[in-house]
């Protein structure tokens, strides 16, 4: 194995994940390739059902019991997550990759005080590192991390129960908890979509600073392309369980390659552009149990060709972007 510091923190190849459902098998991810460099911030953008959350959960192996890894591999810091034992995976969780979830109301254990939950994290990390646990210094560390996430009044917040905190405060506590684990990779699954605009902006700012200060990689999963733009260096666009484009953020926003990326950007109302109609994408996202043949976007694509309806396009590289479309070969 190569020196782990040069390799990508996440390297996913040909990942296919299937959910067994009553309606039939649902291929949530279809041979997905996905890489994250060390210290990089990547966002995964997609609509509901595009598989973006599944991808995040798959990396830390927290998929629902009815999901199965059908094929492919997930290298997380040099370890194939799909092949490890439960015990080995739990050693990777937290210290290698930490994940933040969407709904602040559900994300902290409602019956335990914040300090108890934070100390749990420290204790678990020290155990993994084989070091002794000291309540006093651990408590201090917890308060320090809360200050790091710019939690006003951290000393008092830490003694409360989750239901006494606001959504924004909870997401800060969870991020601070992540920092306690000192992860190399932070996966954030829509951490701001339940928050108010002003609080969302605070949390986004915070994550951006932390990534810089702690040299973490960040995977930011969101449905909001504006949010993705403000937080990430690279954007990965997913549609119907497939990665259709992966490009540097700026170039994707200015000249997206895939027709879906282009249409998505054109369809979003913005504050600055006001005149004229929005360019809407016709149709609806596909049914994931029986997705369309060929390119999954072809029924909605303005540039659809004969080949799109029968064959699935392969990933091609163009000007530093990866795109999955027959327009580019």
């Amino acid at each position, binding site marked *: 194995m190569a020196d782990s510091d040069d390799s990508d923190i996440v390297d996913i190849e040909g990942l296919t994940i299937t959910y067994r459902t009553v309606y039939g098998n649902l291929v949530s991810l279809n041979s997905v390739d996905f890489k994250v460099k060390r210290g990089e911030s990547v966002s995964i953008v997609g609509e509901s059902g595009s598989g973006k959350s599944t991808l995040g959960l798959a990396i830390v192996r927290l998929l629902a019991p009815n999901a199965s890894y059908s094929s492919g591999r997930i290298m997380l810091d040099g370890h194939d997550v799909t092949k490890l034992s439960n015990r080995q995976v*739990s050693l990777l969780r937290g210290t290698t990759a930490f994940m933040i979830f969407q709904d602040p109301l559900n*994300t902290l*254990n409602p019956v335990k005080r914040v300090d108890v939950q934070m100390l749990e994290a420290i204790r*678990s990390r020290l155990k993994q590192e084989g070091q002794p646990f000291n309540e006093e210094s651990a408590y201090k560390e917890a308060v320090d991390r809360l200050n790091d996430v710019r939690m006003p009044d951290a000393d008092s917040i830490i003694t409360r129960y989750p239901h006494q905190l606001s959504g924004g405060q909870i997401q800060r506590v969870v991020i601070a908890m992540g920092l306690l684990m000192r992860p190399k990779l932070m996966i954030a699954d829509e951490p701001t979509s339940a928050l108010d605009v002003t609080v969302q902006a605070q949390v986004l700012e915070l994550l951006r600073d932390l990534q810089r200060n702690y040299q973490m990689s960040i995977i930011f999963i969101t449905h909001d392309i504006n949010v993705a733009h403000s937080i990430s260096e690279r954007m990965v666009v997913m549609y119907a369980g497939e990665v259709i484009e992966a490009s540097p953020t700026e170039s994707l926003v200015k000249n997206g390659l895939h027709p879906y990326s282009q249409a998505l950007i054109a369809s979003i109302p913005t504050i600055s552009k006001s005149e004229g109609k929005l360019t809407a994408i016709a149709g609806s996202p596909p049914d994931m149990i029986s997705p369309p043949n060929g390119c999954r976007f072809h029924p909605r694509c303005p540039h659809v060709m004969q080949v799109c309806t029968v064959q699935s396009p392969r990933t091609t590289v163009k000007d530093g972007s990866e795109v999955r479309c027959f327009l580019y070969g």
Partner: protein
Amino acid sequence: MVSSIVLYLIRRSINAVITIVLLLALVFILLHTIIRSPEGLARVICGNPHCSNSAIALIIKQNGLTNPLWVQFFSYINQVFHGNLGIDTFYRGRPELSVIEAFLPITLELVVTGSALGILIGIFTGSIAASNRNRAQDYGIKAVYLTAWSAPVFLVGFVLQLIFAYWLKLLPAHGIANAFLTPPKVLTGAPLIDALIDGKWVYAYSVAQHLVLPAFALAVASFGITTRLTRASMIDALDRDYVKLAYMKGLSKRTVVWGTAFRNAVIPIITLIALTFAFSVGGAVIIEDVFSYYGMGYFTVQAIYNSDYPAILAFVLIIGLAVIIANLVADLLYAVADPRVRLT
């Protein structure tokens, strides 16, 4: 400013009184719709089918049975709140309350042991089933609890008797204790506790032996409900993000299941305790009949056979009270276990 807990208790007590009065009203209305004539009522109160006419006239006069219905109702309520539940006809004119005093602790001992056993096992198996959802353990436990939930209580009693008492001859099939032993001094009325307090170890051992089968039969019934609900509640908890977050802290599956999910899953089960208690009180009537366990249930069945209405009414009242108290205790426990609950 009144403290919230006091306020809560006041509120609950008022509600309890309202509930009891409504309950009495129900029973009262029922009794009076079925038996409309004062003579009929007097005959019921007398209990003796061959009651003489003069005795009936006396009863009508004493109990004001010709008064308007609402006057009768209030005098009945008044009597109840003064602890007068009527005279037991079967037990030779002893006041109902004293009869109940003798039988109730025996039943309570049985019901509390049985439902506690059922709840504890149920919570445990329910959690195991949920954390191994759709695997062999889950299906196995499901088969057991569905059977336990569906089996009539008396069948469970019979089967236990057949296997452990008659076939393996391990445990006694009938009664509360070996009749040849001298019973302990009556303090609480509950035989096992009295024996232990009094230091009659042999008797206590005998009581414990006799308690095992009926308590276990009761436990089987509450085990079914508890497992089912714990499983659902635990599955719900295990799907929450805080469980995923706990995994993200690098904790092992065991720590997450029992340290994080379990406590959350158990909180809704606390409210079930009162329900299970009530359910077991019902079951006790049957179990006591099967095991000749001379408690309230046995007493009730006797009252049914003897058409002893005052006894049945008194029994209803006492059980209602017990269940209301059990509910209150469960709600207080719930508030202690869940920091989100404010007592209002």
